[in-house]
């Protein structure tokens, strides 16, 4: 994520991410928030894990109250998104109210509805960045992801309209599409040509229905082969798995929280844990959530399996995806392990996975870590040791585990076609 660079009289921070994370850790409360203002979308992206149309949306006045509470709480960075935020006719007024309260704003949009007038109004409000999702430089490929025919044609020039208005545009290219991630490469070509920053998203994009899950996950080997995911140098991977790495704090729920379209507060968009509601409750309710201290104390040493894995340095796991896929927020899951193996294999020049080590469960799959590097390019699954402390944590916070994986959420995405496009 393109956090602003940092300057600090005393130095000591590599970038704005680190500085804001340090501030959040110091006050043990978030300094950033992700505010979903719309519970609807005009695209129906194949990979999207959001379920639209069920929560409802806050009124303009309700959103202003939420903004008041976030400002009073010391939140500085505010990402405004949906659903698709531009479907709200009062979006500019919302952005203006947010700026009046001193937030640094990012707007997330697919830019489908951004015409010159809206671009100018957004520029006039003054935002830090506008992030525009684009899936390919080929119209058909883009539209295949959004599942809205003709969606590419207006999105690209409307990103240009924002830039023309003096807005800093960041192109977002989620690598979501199997069998190859060529879309991300295409967007990279666009960003290079236009001189705008590209933000690749390689995190899990796990849809909430089993039927969509397999379609939306990019093939890990293809990601590495096509340059969308860097190979992991073996020596770096071993270094990253040193003891101090176990003490490194996980970031979820610390620097930033998510406010859903109805005011519900979660640690991230896909962590199904309600920590309060900023429409009906107060920020103090969120701070009093018994789970907030948990997020601030979680380290890699609390993630069983992963903490013992030699590939941790190549891993880009998502805890929410772990819960949805494997039923354990703090345990290994096949999707992340596949990408870690692909990165390590690319760096090592090949990959062989041996039979599980002694002590592994009889039904242990070689597709899930933890792994031990036996020799360069040679992995062996080792036991996933779950301690009494892990079990006690799961008892104190039952949402961490779901015995049978993620609940199958009903898809209620609103699929608005071009017929809903305003004149």
């Amino acid at each position, binding site marked *: 994520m*393109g956090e602003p660079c940092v300057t*600090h009289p005393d130095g000591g*921070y590599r970038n704005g991410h680190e500085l804001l994370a340090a501030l959040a850790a110091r006050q043990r409360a978030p300094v950033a928030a992700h505010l979903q203002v719309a519970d609807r979308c005009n695209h129906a992206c194949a990979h999207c894990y959001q379920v639209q149309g069920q929560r409802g949306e806050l009124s303009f006045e309700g959103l202003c109250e939420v903004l008041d509470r976030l400002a009073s709480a*010391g939140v*500085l960075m505010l990402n405004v998104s949906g659903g698709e935020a531009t479907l709200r006719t009062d979006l500019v007024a919302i952005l203006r109210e947010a*700026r009046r309260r001193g937030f*640094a704003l990012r707007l997330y949009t697919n830019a489908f509805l951004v015409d010159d007038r809206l671009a100018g109004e957004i520029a006039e409000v003054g*935002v830090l960045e506008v992030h525009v999702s684009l899936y390919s430089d080929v119209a058909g490929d883009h539209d295949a992801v959004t599942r809205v025919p003709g969606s590419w044609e207006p999105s690209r020039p409307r990103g240009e309209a924002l830039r023309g208005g003096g807005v800093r545009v960041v192109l977002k290219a989620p690598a979501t599409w199997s069998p190859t991630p060529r879309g991300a490469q295409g967007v990279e070509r666009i960003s290079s040509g236009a001189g705008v920053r590209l933000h690749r998203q390689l995190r899990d994009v796990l849809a909430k229905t089993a039927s969509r899950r397999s379609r939306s996950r990019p093939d890990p080997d293809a990601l590495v082969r096509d340059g969308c995911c860097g190979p992991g140098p073996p020596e770096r991977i071993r270094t990253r798995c040193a003891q101090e790495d176990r003490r490194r704090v996980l970031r979820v729920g610390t620097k930033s929280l998510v406010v859903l379209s109805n005011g519900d507060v979660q640690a991230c968009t896909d962590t199904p844990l309600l920590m309060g509601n900023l429409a009906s409750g107060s920020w103090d309710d969120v701070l009093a959530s018994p789970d907030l201290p948990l997020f601030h104390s979680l380290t890699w040493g609390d993630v069983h399996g992963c903490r013992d894995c030699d590939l941790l340095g190549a891993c880009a796991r998502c805890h929410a995806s772990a819960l949805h896929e494997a039923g354990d927020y703090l345990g290994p899951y096949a999707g992340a392990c596949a990408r870690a193996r692909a990165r390590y294999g690319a760096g090592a020049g090949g990959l062989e996975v041996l039979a599980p080590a002694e002590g592994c469960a009889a039904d242990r799959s070689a597709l899930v870590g933890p792994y031990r590097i036996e020799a360069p390019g040679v992995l062996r699954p080792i036991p996933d040791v779950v301690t009494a402390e892990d079990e006690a944590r799961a008892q104190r916070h039952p949402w961490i585990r779901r015995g049978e994986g993620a609940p199958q959420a009903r898809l209620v995405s609103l699929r608005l076609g071009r017929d809903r496009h305003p004149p």
Partner: protein
Amino acid sequence: MNSDVILRHSPDVAWRRIDGLVAIISLEANRVRLLNRVGSFLWERCDGSTPEALVGDTCARFEVAESTARRDIDAVVRDLVSRGLITTSPSGMA
């Protein structure tokens, strides 16, 4: 720096006091800056104040000689102005 100009936060910044220190994000430069304790004290008084008033406030709040405070505040204000974080206008103007 003229000691009676009016200092104001630039409209292109976002800032908060977080755990006692002021963090400022420059929308134009896309940078975040964290001020130390004295810098934070000055920043919060920079909106509608003059450098001369800042000197008085600083001497009242911290144990510092007036000449030292004046010199340091002049440097800080010049730095903030050069980074586009605060603006100046002649005193008497809105």
